[in-house]
C-alpha cells in the first residue's frame, strides 16, 4: 500500500512540474511585455524598468519560471499586473465561492445519481428504469448555462425563492451563502447527475451478472441481499473514477455558470484576467485548477486501493 501511494506521489509531482512548465511557456509566448502594457504607450523607460523590477520581470526566462514555482510553493502567486495586489489574496477570496460550489454540486449529483442508478438497475426494463434512463438522456443534453438561465427565470425572477445572482459573502451568514449557491449548484449538478446515474446503472448491471452474485444466490441470499452485500461495493469502482473526473468538470463548468449568476469566483477571475491581459492571474488560477484536478485523481486512485484488496499489494 505504501509503495502504491509512493509511486502515485511521484507521478503526481511529475505531472505538476510538466503542467506548470506548459502553462508558463504558453503564456510566455504572448506578445508584449506586461510592464509596458500596464503603464501605457507614454511611459518612460526608467518607470518601465522600475515596474519590471517590482514584478520580478527583469530576470531570465528560466529564472522567472523557478521564481514563479518557488513562490507558489510558499503560497505566493505574485502580484497582479492590473490591481498591483497579491494574486494570493484575490484567489483566496474567490476560492471560498468556487470550491463550496463544486462540492455542493458534487454532493447534489451523487445524492441524485446513486438512488436513481440503483433503482434503474434493479428495475431493469420496468417503467422506473425507462423513465430514469429517459430523463438522464435529456439531462446530459441540456447545456448547464442554459439550464441556469431558465432556473433564474423560474426560481429567482418568477417565484423569488432564490437570489438571481451575486453573492452576499459568508460573513453575512451561512444560509444566505448556501441560498446564493443553490441555483448554480443545481445547474451544474444536473448533467453530472445524469451521467453518474447511467454509470451507476450499467456498472451495477455488469456486477449483477458476475459469477459471484450467482454464488451468493446459491448460498441462499435474496436478490436484495446479494445486491447490497455483494454487488454494490464492486459496482462502486468505476463510479469512483467518474466522480473523480466530474470534479474537474465541475470546476471548469463552474467558470461558465459563475458568469450566469455573477458569482465572484475563480471563473470570473480568469475572465477578468483575460480581458485585462493580467496574465499572472490567468496563469495562477489555471495552475491552481490543474493542481485540484491532479489531486482529485490521486485521491481517487488511493480510494481504489482502499476498496479493492487486489490493488493494495502492487
Amino acid at each position, binding site marked *: 500500500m505504501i509503495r502504491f501511494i509512493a509511486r502515485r506521489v511521484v*507521478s503526481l509531482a*511529475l*505531472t505538476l512540474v*510538466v*503542467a506548470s512548465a*506548459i*502553462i508558463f511557456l*504558453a*503564456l510566455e*509566448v*504572448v506578445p508584449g511585455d506586461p510592464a509596458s502594457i500596464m503603464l501605457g504607450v507614454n511611459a518612460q523607460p526608467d518607470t518601465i524598468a522600475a515596474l519590471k523590477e517590482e514584478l520580478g520581470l527583469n530576470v531570465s526566462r528560466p529564472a522567472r519560471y523557478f521564481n514563479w514555482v518557488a513562490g507558489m510553493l510558499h503560497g505566493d502567486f505574485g502580484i497582479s499586473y492590473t490591481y498591483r495586489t497579491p494574486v494570493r489574496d484575490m484567489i483566496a477570496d474567490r476560492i471560498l465561492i468556487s470550491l463550496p460550489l463544486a462540492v455542493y454540486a458534487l454532493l447534489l449529483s451523487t445524492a441524485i445519481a446513486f438512488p436513481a442508478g440503483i433503482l434503474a438497475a434493479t428495475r431493469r426494463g420496468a417503467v422506473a428504469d425507462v423513465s430514469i434512463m429517459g430523463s438522464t*438522456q*435529456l439531462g*446530459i*443534453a*441540456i*447545456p*448547464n*448555462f*442554459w439550464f441556469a*438561465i*431558465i432556473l*433564474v*427565470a423560474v426560481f429567482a*425572477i418568477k417565484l423569488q425563492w432564490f437570489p438571481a445572482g451575486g453573492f452576499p459573502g459568508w460573513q453575512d451568514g451561512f444560509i444566505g451563502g448556501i441560498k446564493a449557491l443553490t441555483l448554480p449548484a443545481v445547474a451544474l449538478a444536473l448533467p453530472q447527475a445524469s451521467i453518474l446515474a447511467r454509470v451507476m446503472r450499467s456498472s451495477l448491471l455488469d456486477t449483477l451478472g458476475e459469477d459471484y452474485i450467482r454464488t451468493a444466490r446459491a448460498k441462499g441470499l435474496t436478490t436484495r441481499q446479494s445486491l447490497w452485500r455483494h454487488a454494490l461495493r464492486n459496482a462502486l469502482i468505476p463510479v469512483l473514477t467518474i466522480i473523480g473526473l466530474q470534479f*474537474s*468538470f465541475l*470546476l*471548469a*463548468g463552474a*467558470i*461558465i455558470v459563475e*458568469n*450566469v449568476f455573477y458569482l465572484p469566483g475563480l471563473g470570473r477571475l*480568469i*475572465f477578468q*484576467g*483575460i480581458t485585462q491581459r493580467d*496574465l499572472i492571474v*490567468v496563469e495562477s488560477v*489555471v495552475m491552481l*485548477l*490543474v493542481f485540484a*484536478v*491532479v489531486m482529485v*485523481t490521486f485521491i481517487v486512485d488511493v480510494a481504489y486501493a482502499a476498496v479493492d484488496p487486489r490493488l493494495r499489494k502492487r
Partner: protein
Amino acid sequence: MHNRRNLYIGVILCAMVLLAALVSFFWTPYNVTELNIAEKFKSPGMPYLLGTDHFGRDILSMLMVGARMSIAVALIAVGIGILFGVPLGLFAAARANTLVEEVIMRGNDLVFAFPALLIAIMITAVFGPGAVNAIIAIGIFNIPVFARLSRAAALSLWQRDFVLSARVSGKSGLRISVEHILPNLLNLLLVQGTIQFSLGVLAEAALSYVGLGAQPPVPSWGRMLAESQTFFSIASHVVIFPGLAIVLTVLGLNLLGDGLRDYFDPRLRQSSWNSTS
C-alpha cells in the same frame, strides 16, 4: 425492435440538424446579418416561425446558420482527436510495456489534467478568441480520449490468438495494428466519435456563450443565448429556442451513439456455441 428505437430517433434528429445546416448555405427564411429593429421580439408564428430577437433577426434563420458552426467545430475537433489519438493509442499498444507506451500514456494523463475549457481559456488568453481556437481546444482534449480508448481496446485485441497467428506469419507490429487491430476498433470509434461529437457541440456552445468561440457577426447558438439571456422576461422564446436546438442536437447524437452501440454489441450478435463439425 426495442433496441433500434434509440438509433432511429437519433438518426432522425441528427439528419434534421444536418439538413438545416446544409440548406442554410443556399437558403434561409431571412437574412441573418440584416438588422430590423422594427420587427424585434416578434412572437413565434407567422411570418417568423420561431420569432425574432432583439435586433429583429429571424431566430429560425440564425439557428440554421448557427448549426453550421456547431457541426463544423465539433466535427473537426473529433477529427483531430481520431487523427492523432488513434495512432498514438495503437502505437502504445503495439509497444506495450516499453518506455514509448509509458511516455504516451503519461502525456495523455497530463492533457486530462486540463479540462477542455481551461485549454480553451489558455489558448484564448494567448491567441485571442475565435472559432479556430475553439476547435483546437476541443480537439486537443479529444486526443487523449481516443488514445486511451484505442489503446485499451488494442491491448485486449493483442491478447487474442489471431494476432499470435499473424505474428507467426512474420508480420510486424505496425502491419498487425493496421491489418488486424484497426478494423476491429472501427465500431468502437464510431460510437465514441458520436459521443465526442455531442460533447463537442456542448463545448462549442459553452465557449461561444462566454465569448471565446465564434465572433460576431457569425451566428452561433451559444452566443445567441449570451446575447438574449437578459431578455428572458420580455420574450422567453429568444432564450428557449437556441437552447432547444442544442438539446435536440446533443440528444440526437447521444441516442445515435447508444443505438450504434446496441447495434454493434457483440453479445447480441455472437453466434452460439454449436459444435457440429
